[in-house]
C-alpha cells in the first residue's frame, strides 16, 4: 500500500481546498468611495494632503515629513522575500469611505456590504458575546465604534489612531514612533511614518487589568490600496491587556500593500498579549513591522497565524530591556501555491534573567515557500538568560520548500539556549497508527495537522481557535465566502 506522494498531495489539496476562488468583485466605479487622494504616487504633496484632510496638528505633519525624507533616502531591502513586483508609486493612499460624516455607533448602522463580510467571519456573535469594544477599519478610517462603559471607567483608552492624535497628544507624542519603531528603522517604517492612516491606540493605566480582549478588524477594499494602519499599545506598570487583530480582504487584480506598524510598550510587571490572524488574499504584500519593548518583569506574548497574502515578511520583535522580562512568540504559517511566507521572530535579550520561547509551526504545499528567520541575541553582561526556539515545518509534497535560518548570537557565557527544528512530511508512522484505529487517511492527515498546530491554536480565544482550524482547513481558498 504505502501512501503515494500524489495521493498525499491530493488529500492535502482536498483538505485545504483548491486555489483561491474569485469572490464577487465590485467595479471600482461602483464602490462608495467618498474621498480619493488627488495625488497618485508618493510625494511630499501627498503627505501634506493627507495630514490636511485629517486636520492633524502641526507636530504630526512635521513627523510625517521627516519620515518621508528618510523614506526617499533609503534603498529597497536586498534580503528577504522578492519585492520586485511591488510598485510603490502606483499605490493610492488613503480612502475615506462614504458614511464618515455620520459615524454610526450601532452595529445595525454599519453599511451592508461591510456587515456581510463580518457576518461571514462570524463577528456579530463575537460582538454580542465578548467584545469589550470593537473598531472596524474600513479603508483607512474608522467607521464604527462601540465602547463599553466599564472600559472607559477603568481609564482605558481604546480609540482609533487618528482621533488619538487629536485627543491624547501628549501620550501619542511620547510613544508614537519614538523609541520602539522609529521611522529610520527601515524603508517601510519610513514609508509608514509618512503615510500612516488609521489603526488603534490602546492605553492601559497603571495596575489596570482589562477583563476581556480588545478586538479590531481590517478590510482592504479598494484596488491598488495601501493599508498603513498604526497600532500603538501602551501598558503601564502592572497593567494587563489582550489585543486581537483580524484581517481579511477580498480578491483584486492589482497589487496591494499592507505596511502596518505595531508598537507595544509593556511597562514593568505588565502583561500584553497581541494576537493577529491574517488572512489576506493572494495579491497582497504583507510587510509589517511589529515590535515590543518589554520592561522589567513584564511578559509580552505574540500569538498569530499568517495564512493568506501573496508575500509576507513579518518578524515580530521583542526587546527585553528590563530584568526578568519575558517574551513568547507563537506562530502558524501556511504557504500554498504562489505564496511566500518569510516570517520569524526576533528576540533581543538586553537585560539579565530574561527568558523567551518561540514556537513556530509552518505548513507548505503546492509549491509554497515558508522560511523561518529568527534572531536570538543575548547581549554582553546579560546573565541568567534562558531562551528556547522550536520551529517545525510540514512539507506536504515534493515541490514545496521550507527553510530555516536561525541566527543565534550570544555574548554571555551562562546563557541556556535551545533551538530545534524538525522538517518533513507527515510521518508515516503516525498515519499508520491512526489508521490502525480505523481512521481513514484523509481524516488522519487532518487530525495530525491540527495536532501539529495545536500548541498555538490552544492559546487563541475559543472562537478564534474554531475559526483558525476552519481557516487552516480552507486556507488555500483564500477569499472570504
Amino acid at each position, binding site marked *: *500500500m504505502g501512501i503515494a506522494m500524489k495521493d498525499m498531495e491530493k488529500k492535502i489539496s482536498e483538505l485545504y481546498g483548491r486555489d483561491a476562488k474569485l469572490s464577487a468583485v465590485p467595479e471600482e466605479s461602483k464602490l462608495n468611495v467618498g474621498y480619493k487622494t488627488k495625488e497618485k504616487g508618493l510625494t511630499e504633496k501627498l503627505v501634506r494632503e493627507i495630514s490636511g484632510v485629517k486636520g492633524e496638528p502641526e507636530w504630526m505633519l512635521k513627523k510625517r515629513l521627516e519620515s518621508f525624507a528618510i523614506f526617499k533616502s533609503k534603498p529597497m531591502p536586498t534580503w528577504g522575500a522578492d519585492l520586485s513586483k511591488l510598485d510603490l508609486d502606483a499605490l493610492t493612499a488613503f480612502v475615506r469611505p462614504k458614511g464618515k460624516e455620520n459615524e454610526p455607533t450601532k452595529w445595525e448602522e454599519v453599511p451592508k456590504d461591510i456587515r456581510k463580510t463580518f457576518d461571514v467571519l462570524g463577528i456579530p456573535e463575537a460582538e454580542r458575546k465578548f467584545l469589550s469594544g470593537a473598531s472596524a477599519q474600513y479603508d483607512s478610517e474608522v467607521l464604527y465604534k462601540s465602547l463599553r462603559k466599564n472600559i472607559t471607567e477603568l481609564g482605558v483608552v481604546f480609540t482609533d489612531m487618528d482621533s488619538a492624535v487629536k485627543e491624547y497628544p501628549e501620550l501619542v507624542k511620547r510613544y508614537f514612533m519614538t523609541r520602539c519603531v522609529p521611522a529610520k528603522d527601515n524603508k517601510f517604517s519610513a514609508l509608514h511614518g509618512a503615510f500612516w492612516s488609521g489603526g488603534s491606540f490602546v492605553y492601559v493605566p497603571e495596575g489596570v487589568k482589562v477583563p476581556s480582549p480588545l478586538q479590531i478588524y481590517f478590510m482592504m477594499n479598494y484596488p491598488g490600496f495601501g493599508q498603513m494602519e498604526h497600532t500603538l499599545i501602551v501598558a503601564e506598570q502592572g497593567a494587563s491587556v489582550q489585543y486581537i487583530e483580524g484581517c481579511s480582504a477580498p480578491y483584486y487584480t492589482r497589487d496591494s500593500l499592507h505596511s502596518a506598524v505595531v508598537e507595544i510598550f509593556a511597562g514593568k510587571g505588565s502583561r500584553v498579549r497581541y494576537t493577529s490572524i491574517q488572512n489576506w488574499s493572494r495579491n497582497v504584500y504583507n510587510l509589517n513591522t511589529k515590535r515590543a519593548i518589554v520592561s522589567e518583569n513584564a511578559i509580552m506574548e505574540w500569538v498569530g497565524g499568517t495564512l493568506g497574502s501573496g508575500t509576507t515578511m513579518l518578524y515580530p520583535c521583542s526587546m527585553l530591556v528590563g530584568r526578568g522580562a519575558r517574551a513568547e512568540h507563537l506562530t502558524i504559517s501556511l504557504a500554498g501555491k504562489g505564496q511566500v511566507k518569510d516570517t520569524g521572530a526576533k528576540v533581543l535579550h538586553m537585560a539579565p534573567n530574561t527568558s523567551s520561547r518561540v514556537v513556530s509551526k509552518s505548513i507548505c504545499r503546492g509549491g509554497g515557500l515558508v522560511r523561518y528567520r529568527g534572531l536570538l541575541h543575548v547581549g554582553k553582561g546579560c546573565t541568567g538568560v534562558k531562551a528556547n526556539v522550536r520551529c517545525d515545518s510540514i512539507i506536504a509534497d515534493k515541490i514545496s520548500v521550507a527553510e530555516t535560518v536561525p541566527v543565534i548570537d550570544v555574548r554571555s557565557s551562562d546563557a541556556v539556549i535551545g533551538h530545534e527544528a524538525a522538517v518533513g512530511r507527515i510521518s508515516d508512522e503516525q498515519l*499508520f497508527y491512526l489508521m490502525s484505529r480505523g481512521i481513514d487517511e484523509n481524516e488522519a492527515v487532518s487530525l*495530525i495537522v491540527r495536532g501539529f498546530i495545536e500548541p498555538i491554536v490552544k492559546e487563541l480565544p475559543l472562537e478564534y481557535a474554531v475559526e483558525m482550524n476552519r481557516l487552516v482547513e480552507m486556507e488555500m481558498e483564500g477569499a472570504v465566502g
Partner: protein
Amino acid sequence: MALLSLKNLKISAGDKEIIQGISLDVGEGEVHVIMGQNGSGKSTLLSALAGNPKYAVKGAALFEGKDLLTLKPHERARRGLFLAFQSPIEVPGVSLASMLRRAYAARFGDEMGAVEFDKILQAKSEAMGLARSFYSRGINDGMSGGERKMSEILQLSVLEPRLAMLDEPDSGLDVDALERVGAAIGKVRRNGMSMIIVTHYARVLRSIRADRVHVMHLGKIVASGDEKLAHKIEENGYSWVLR
C-alpha cells in the same frame, strides 16, 4: 471457521524476507501466545497483519473468512482487527479522547457527541484505574513506557475488536506497571475477546490462560503446544526448542 486463518504467509521488507512461511489458525475466543527471541519476526508478523505499508505480504490471510491482505489498515481496524503497538508513537496535539471518538464512530457507525462519548470513555478508564487527564492529553504525549501500554489497552477496551493483537505488552515495564497492564488485559479478556499475544517472556500467562503457545525462530513457527511449552521456556530458555 477460524477467526483468523493464515496460510503460508511470507512477509518481506525491501529485499529482506522476514517471515518465511507461517500458517496459523486462531479460533473465535481463543488466546494464542507467540514467543521467540529478538529477530524471530514475531512483531513483524503482527505489524504486517495490521497492514503496515512497510511490508510486502504473500500468501493467504483470511479474517472472518474474508481476504485481509487487500484491505487498507483502517479497513482492517474497522472490521475488528486491533494492534496494540510495542512502542506506541506520539501524536502530539491530538487528544486520545478525540481520536477514540472518531475511531469508535468508524468502527460502530455510531457518531457520538463529545459529551456522550466522554461518558463511555470515563467508564472504561475508571475500570482501569485511569484518570480523565490520561485521555485528555495528546496521544502518548510525555507518557512513560508503562503509561503507553495502558493507553493501548484502554483503546482496546473502547474499540472492542474481534481480534486483539498485542505486541509485547509486557516489555520495558517495572513490576507495578506489569501488574496493572496484566490486570487490564485480563479484564478485557474476560469478555471473551480473541487475542494473539507476542511476548519474549511467559510472564503474561500469570494474567490470562492461553489456548495455544507457539515459538517462532527466524521467521518460522518451530514449535506449538499448550501453556506447558511456555513454562518450559521460562525455565530453560529457548535453545532446547531450537535444536
